[in-house]
Structures are given as structure tokens and as C-alpha cells.
């Protein structure tokens, strides 16, 4: 099978370092992965091509890179399924991390953030006489998060990290959930209050936009964003609600539970806090612009017909299971 591999290359030792595109034409077996093609290029065509790889079996997490614009493990991606109509596959280094050379990126910030969530069990209750007991159910629940191989695919394609490098990011937050959801972590009841307080700070769980990029690109089904949502649920249920993110989720749900639909006018006010005058003041220009263009949400928010049934549904689903 003939393929053209278009690679974004970068050499810091070049005279004027800047990334550039280089296309390689080669014949590979039908079953070749993108990684196979890259290794073949390095061995037979251009020995200066730099990339990371090891296991070639989607276990080690070394070869995360962008293929056709999205992060993948190159060893888990078939070349034949990645070609466009001209027979070209595009390969770039992972995003949101500085490029060292060609397809190799610097993982320092990745590991700093993993370390920042203190990725080890911290039991706070009294020590049990024997071993810590964790139910099979709770361990099974964690198995999807512990499947993380730290490849950085989620970090590469995170839309928040693209504009704010201080964000903890999907990998570290999913790792944090691995501990907040572990019954052996935290107090005797398995509640990791201190962790959740830390994670509720700016650059933490509430800065995620819920864009699903990390869920889509994770090669191991960790679904980091779903873990971030679970962290939010844990934080809210612990009463850690003194931030815009938690207030937003609370006020949103309250609005829909009351009227069946979202009250777009009051949601932002309740999110920043009714008495947060500077924040409320900052809404004024946007509100005025909306008003002069005839698109301010209705001042009187109407309930849906038969709203009683919606309110009853809310009270029913909110009852703890019998």
C-alpha cells in the first residue's frame, strides 16, 4: 500500500528553528499502523526523524501524537484508515506541550500536574487492625480510571489548556478522581474533603468546558471529562458550593426544576452571587447590547405547561434510593 506521510517537523538546533512540513512517500503493508510507517521512515528514509515509542501495543503510552488533527496513539491507529482522498496522512506532535524535536514533546508540565493532585492514597481515619477493605464494586468502578496509561492524548487536545496553561487538565483531574472515589482515601467514610476543596480552586475542576475532546481521544476509555463531572457532583454534595461553577450547576438545576426551562436572565446573576456587585456590573455592557438588539431573555420567565409534573419529578428523583 502506497502512503504519503506528511509530518510537522521541528529541529531546535537548526539555524532558525521553526516548524515545517515534510512529506514522505513510501510503501507499507496493508496492516501497518501509523507508528510502523514512522519507524520505517526513520530507518529507511531519514534517520533524523525523532519520535517516542516503545511497546507498539497501546500499553506504554509513549507514542501519543496528532494524526489528522486529533491525538491518538500512533501504534493503535491504522495507516490505511487514516488516509485522505489523496492518500496522505498528517502527523504532528501532541498539542499543549512544548515540542522538543519533531514528534517528541516535553512532558514536564504533564507530570507537574499529576504530582499536584498528590496521586497516592491518603487515609485519614483511624488505622484498621487488618488491611483496608474496599468493596469489589468500588474497585470495579475505579478500573476505568486506573486504565489511564498517561499518554497525554487528553492533554494534547484539551480546549482549555489551549488558552490557559494553568488549568490542571483532564489527565490530572481524572487521576484525582481515582483517589476521591477510592473508599480507602480520606476520612473513615472515604470522603476526601481536603482534596475536593483543593480541586475546587481556580484552575481546577470548574474550569473544564465539558467539550468532550478528552473523552473522544482517550485511547483507553478513561473518559476524563466524565470523571471531572463526577468530581463536581462530589464537591456539590459535600457542600463545597462557594464558587461560580457550583453555584452555576445549582442555579441551573433549580431553574429547570422550578419552571421546566432555563431562566437565562437569572442564571448568570445567581452564578456570580446576588451581591457580587463588581461581577454584576461587568454584565451590564453585554446586557445592554442584548437589550438594544432585542435579544434580552424575557424579564418574566414563564413556566412550561403542566409544570407541577416537572416539580414532582424533581422531588421524586432527588429522594435517596430506598
Amino acid at each position: 500500500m502506497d502512503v504519503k506521510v506528511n509530518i510537522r517537523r521541528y529541529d531546535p538546533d537548526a539555524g532558525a528553528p521553526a516548524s515545517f512540513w515534510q512529506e514522505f512517500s513510501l510503501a507499507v503493508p496493508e496492516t501497518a499502523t501509523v507508528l510502523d510507517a514512522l519507524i520505517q521512515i526513520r530507518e529507511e528514509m531519514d534517520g533524523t526523524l525523532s519520535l517516542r515509542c516503545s511497546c507498539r501495543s497501546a500499553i506504554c503510552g509513549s507514542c501519543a501524537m496528532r494524526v489528522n488533527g486529533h491525538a491518538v496513539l500512533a501504534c493503535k491507529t491504522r495507516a490505511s484508515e487514516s488516509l485522505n482522498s489523496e492518500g496522505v496522512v498528517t502527523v504532528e506532535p501532541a498539542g499543549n506541550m512544548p515540542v522538543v524535536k519533531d514528534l517528541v514533546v516535553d512532558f514536564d508540565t504533564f507530570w507537574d500536574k499529576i504530582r499536584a493532585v498528590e496521586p497516592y492514597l491518603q487515609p485519614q481515619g483511624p488505622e484498621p487492625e487488618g488491611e483496608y477493605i474496599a468493596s469489589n464494586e468500588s474497585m470495579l468502578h475505579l478500573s476505568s480510571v486506573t486504565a489511564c496509561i498517561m499518554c497525554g492524548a487528553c492533554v494534547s487536545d484539551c480546549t482549555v489548556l489551549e488558552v490557559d496553561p494553568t488549568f490542571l487538565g483532564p489527565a490530572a483531574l481524572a487521576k484525582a478522581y481515582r483517589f476521591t472515589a477510592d473508599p480507602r482515601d480520606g476520612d473513615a467514610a472515604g470522603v476526601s474533603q481536603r482534596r475536593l476543596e483543593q480541586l475546587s480552586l481556580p484552575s481546577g475542576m470548574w474550569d473544564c468546558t465539558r467539550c468532550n475532546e478528552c473523552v473522544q481521544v482517550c485511547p483507553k476509555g478513561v473518559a476524563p471529562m466524565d470523571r471531572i463531572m463526577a468530581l463536581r457532583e462530589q464537591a456539590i454534595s459535600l457542600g463545597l458550593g462557594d464558587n461560580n461553577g457550583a453555584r452555576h450547576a445549582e442555579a441551573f438545576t433549580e431553574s429547570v426544576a422550578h419552571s421546566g426551562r432555563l431562566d437565562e436572565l437569572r442564571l448568570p446573576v445567581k452564578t456570580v452571587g446576588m451581591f457580587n456587585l463588581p461581577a454584576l456590573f461587568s454584565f451590564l455592557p453585554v446586557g445592554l447590547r442584548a437589550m438594544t438588539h432585542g435579544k434580552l431573555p424575557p424579564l418574566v420567565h414563564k413556566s412550561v405547561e403542566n409544570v407541577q409534573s416537572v416539580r414532582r419529578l424533581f422531588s421524586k428523583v432527588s429522594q435517596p434510593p430506598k
Partner: protein
Amino acid sequence: MKYAYFPGCVSQGGAPELHTATKLICQKLGIEIQEISGWTCCGAGVMQEKNQLFSDTLNARTFAKAEQAGLPILTICSTCQGVMGQANLRMKRDPEYLAQINSYLAEEGLEYKGTAEPKHLLWILIEDYGLDNLLAQVTRPLSGLRVAPFYGCYIVRPTEALDIEEHPERQTSLETLIEKVGATLVDFAGKTRCCGFPILTINEKNSVAMVAKHTAEVKELGADAMVTPCPLCHLNLDGYQPKASKQLNRSINLPILHLPQLIGLALGFSHQEMGLQKHIIDTKPLQLKIGAGS
């Protein structure tokens, strides 16, 4: 062709022009839409942080009402589409979960049988209505207009809730429509990224930075406008573009169109009928280019 219409909260609040444009183009195209009585918010992905069961139950209630009417559901919002698709998937995969939800719905005399397949207008125009039929109705081809696509996260990810495997053409549906109505496609990598709206009131700086990044990028590529099937993206990309300009310290001025507005302009509607005067970013340069006077 008849559908159970799910307008979504934003078309009833911050983006009323979307609702108006949808009704007008559907009428013109002969697509009958019947609003689902007493429909409720889809949860927008926010309610799942607080109470996913409530969010899923409300969507099941909407689905059950459409089933009762015997009509397929038409959505006009990427976020509604995605959230409903995800809720539907959870219920279809787990009969016990569906049974639990149906036990709540029973009091209102409703039962969700699991047959609903909510479908965005974007997909309906291509898959049900047909591009040739659409083209036959185009009276004002938007030739010369350079338009960039912007999907909105939930209509592209996660793919398993969007039947992408069965309908791979959905991944390029917006580009297809842009070209079908005679406009020139301005393609860019950011088209499937996030507009930043969900964190607008949580981290405005980051949210506005996303608006700045995408709008400035396509403006530099020479786009006259951007089109989106998601009113939440519209709220941010249009409404917060002035703040994005400030953040970048230069003007952007990129008109943002709702999908039905782009179609409507090609069907011969005036800019007034399509509600372009309701936009925050001035759409006059765009109107002049295609001759869409009132």
C-alpha cells in the same frame, strides 16, 4: 415531512432569531414542525453535574411525548442534540435504568419506549430532505460569500451518541451545506473546538479567549461570516466578540450566522426576516455582499 419540534431554551431566550428563522425556512421548504407541548430543558450538560437522573428523566419525558405524537424529533441546537443523544444512549443501553425512569413518568401517564431518535435540522436537511431538493429551492445562491463552519462540541463528540459510525457524512455536514447554498467554504481546524460558552460565567477570561482565537483565525483567512448550528456558540461568538476584540486589542467584526439564517438567506428571505438585525456584530457588510436588503 413532519417533525416534533424541540426549540430548546436558548431559542426562547437569548437567541429568539433562531426560532423565527427556523419556522420560516421550514415553512418554505415544506417541512412541517409541531412544537412538543410542555417540552423541558435538555439539561445542557450542566444538570448532570448536580443530578443526571433528573436530566435524563426530563429528556425521557420529552421523548415520550414525541412518541405519543408519532413524530421524529427535530432539534436546532448542537448542545440539545448531543445531550439528548447521550441521555438516549444511557437509557437504551440499560433497560433497568429506563424502567426506573419510566416509573417516575408513569404518574403523568407517560412511558418512553426507547424509539426516539432526535435529529438536528443540519442532519435532517441532508439525510431526510435531500440536498437536491434543497438546491431546487435556492433562489439566491450565496456566491462570493466566504463562510467558515463552527459545529459546537456536542454535535461532533462523543461520536457514539451521534450515530457517526452509521452516518460518517455528519462529520462534514456543515461544510456540505455551506457549499450547497453557493457560498465558499473557509475551512479551519478550530471548527470542531469549543466556543467557551459553558465556562462564560465561571472563567470569563478563558471563555472569551476561545472566542478570540476562533473568530480572529477565520477572519484572517478572509471569511465574511461564520455559521453555527449551536445557539450557545452563537451567544458567545457573537455576544462576546466585542470583549474578545478588547482582549486581542484589535477589531474582529466577524458576523456569526445561525444555520437556518444561512439557509434562509439562500432561500431568498431578507435579512430582516432572518433576524440579522438582532445580532451584536454588525451583519451589514455581509448583507451588501449577497444583496439581502429588507
